[in-house]
């Protein structure tokens, strides 16, 4: 399905007559990308659903004040990232870590440690050991294959610092995998 580009979506939203149509395109264009971005951060589907709804409501409430100093794409990702991190802070990560640890341990027990499934479970556990912002950077680069300059807009961090953060995250994950594989 093809959607209007971000510029056209913004124009639709800014006109009262076409606002709802603009919102429809916006949600259709970004719902799955944002869901998976959020889901990788919060793990549980129900939590991801809550954060996704909150993200879109913030986007919809504030989009008329969006000054296009960054692209709509990175602005929306920034809101989603903040919502996800705020959610994790509010949960103190305790429940999530415990749940992920149990599930992952069980999964690893069911598979050969070198099987792709076991390695992916290990990867999930390894990513979850990263600090929240480093995990965010790693996910955006590794899964979304996002250029550094876009990640820089989302995280409001310099590209140099991002590269350093990503490289360090990759190193940590590799060490984690090698230690447990």
């Amino acid at each position: 399905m093809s959607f209007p580009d971000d510029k056209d979506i913004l124009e639709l939203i800014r006109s009262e007559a076409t606002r709802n149509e603009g919102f429809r395109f916006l949600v259709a264009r970004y719902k799955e990308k944002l869901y998976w971005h959020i889901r990788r951060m919060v793990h549980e589907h129900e939590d991801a659903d809550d954060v996704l709804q909150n993200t879109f409501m913030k986007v919809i409430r504030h989009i008329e004040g969006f000054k296009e100093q960054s692209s709509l794409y990175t602005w929306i990702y920034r809101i989603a990232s903040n919502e996800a991190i705020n959610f994790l802070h509010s949960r103190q990560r305790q429940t999530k870590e415990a749940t992920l640890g149990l599930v992952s341990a069980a999964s690893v027990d069911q598979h050969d440690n070198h099987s792709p499934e076991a390695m992916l479970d290990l990867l999930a556990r390894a990513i979850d050991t990263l600090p929240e912002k480093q995990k965010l950077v790693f996910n955006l680069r590794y899964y979304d294959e996002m250029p550094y300059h876009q990640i820089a807009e989302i995280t409001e961090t310099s590209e140099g610092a991002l590269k350093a953060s990503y490289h360090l995250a990759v190193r940590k994950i590799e060490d984690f995998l090698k230690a447990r594989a």
Partner: protein
Amino acid sequence: MKRSETYNVKEELEQLSPLLASLPKKNTMVDDVPAGYFEKAEKEILAQARIHSYEGSKPGLPDGYFAGMEDRFMASAENKKSKRRSMVIFLFQAAAAVFVVVLTSIIVFRNSGASGADLKEDVAQEEYFNYLQENIDEVDIETLAEYDLVDESDLAVSQYPLPVNSEPENGQLFDSEINF
């Protein structure tokens, strides 16, 4: 996403960690997403967006609304007060008019207690006729005409003066008195 950027990501990862680069980027969380979730989520989000859009379209306060509020309120109160005063005056006048009509009716009713109409109802026609004949000198000519004791044509004013020293004939007294 540009292909060169994607290539750069892969190349970078291969340089950084061949182990990590060799792993498939399989999404292991897809299976626990309920069927039709994204369609449902889109509907829910758009429903909330419509509510927000509706709330946002409510008319705001015009510029200077609060600045002139006191004057408008006082003017409105004065106008209402004036209307109330006019209404009281109108009601007072209406009540006075009704009072005058009722009072007049009572007076007329009481004063007309001996009128021919009432008598006609209370007294038998024949008895009244007899009474008028017996007391004809005490009754005015209109009452006599009302009870057909005189003809209307008899009420016409004569242009002819009554002859001097003329004596009415017997049996014609009645006629002479009405025929000047």
